[in-house]
């Protein structure tokens, strides 16, 4: 598949995300935040970093970048969209995903190899995993605490839309939620960084690769 990775001013992990897409067998396409179109890609990744310096709120300015109109349209049309870390924050600010990410409860920037349980293996980005599978990937953020009102949290749980949950709770996220998906399962937001865990040379292993190999698997939701 052609996987577009959007670079915003202040994106940091766009290069790693493109590499992860290539390692998983896809063609990676660099997409600029100022573009009006998605250049014919089949899936989109919003990478980690500090878009627009995290000014105002994380992801709040990036949400209104020219390319985001195309991302929102494509997401509503069923295109697989993965937001990692800052990308997750942007998806929440765009209202493509429920909830918000606020400062870690311990107030420190955390950077660690984090264990997660994949709870939903039916999304466009998690079909390579089995539900209940435990993976270890990198978590690095200052504002990664997932919050939503009780009604929304109950809905996410009832509809199986919690994609991944932390083992332990490294940042005060409500119900230890590390990632969620939209109703259709094509849009996924994840606070930890699977693109940093795709090769043995660096990072905690290759557990993150499944997010990228899931794309296009079994013709799931392909655009």
């Amino acid at each position, binding site marked *: 598949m052609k996987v577009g990775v959007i670079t915003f001013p202040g994106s940091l992990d766009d290069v790693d995300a493109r590499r992860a897409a290539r390692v998983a067998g896809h063609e990676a396409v660099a997409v600029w935040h100022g573009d009006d179109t998605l250049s014919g890609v089949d899936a989109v990744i919003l990478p980690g970093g500090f878009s627009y310096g995290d000014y105002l709120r994380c992801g709040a300015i990036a949400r209104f970048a020219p390319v985001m109109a195309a991302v929102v349209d494509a997401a509503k049309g069923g295109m697989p969209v993965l937001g990692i870390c800052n990308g997750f924050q942007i998806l929440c600010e765009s209202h493509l995903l429920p909830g*918000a990410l*606020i400062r870690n409860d311990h107030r420190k920037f955390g950077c660690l190899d984090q264990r997660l349980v994949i709870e939903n293996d039916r999304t466009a980005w998690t079909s390579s995993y089995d539900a209940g599978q435990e993976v270890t990937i990198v978590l690095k953020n200052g504002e990664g605490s997932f919050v939503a009102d009780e009604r929304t949290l109950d809905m996410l749980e009832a509809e199986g839309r919690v994609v991944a949950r932390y083992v332990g709770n490294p940042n005060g996220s409500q119900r230890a939620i590390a990632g969620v998906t939209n109703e259709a399962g094509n849009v996924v937001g994840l606070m930890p960084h699977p693109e940093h865990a795709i090769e043995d040379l660096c990072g905690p292993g290759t557990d993150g690769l499944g997010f990228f190999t899931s794309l296009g698997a079994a013709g799931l939701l392909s655009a």
Partner: protein
Amino acid sequence: MARVVVDVMPKPEILDPQGKAVLGALPRLGFEGVTDVRQGKRFELEIDGELTPARLAEVEQMAETLLSNPVIEDYAVRVLAEPEVGA
């Protein structure tokens, strides 16, 4: 010219780690008796021309779409008195 202030505060049920950090620092500096601190943001908007109800409604829209995130924050819009000429 009018000046409109938008105050944005974290919702009461949302943890405010920054406020907690300030609360923790106060006793260390010898300031006693503060039982809670919530930290928010204040935006001052200079509005061109007359501040009509329509313009004010627009400020509400700005507050709701950009200045605050309704999932985690509340906002309040208020108009500051027009500055005196020559002040």
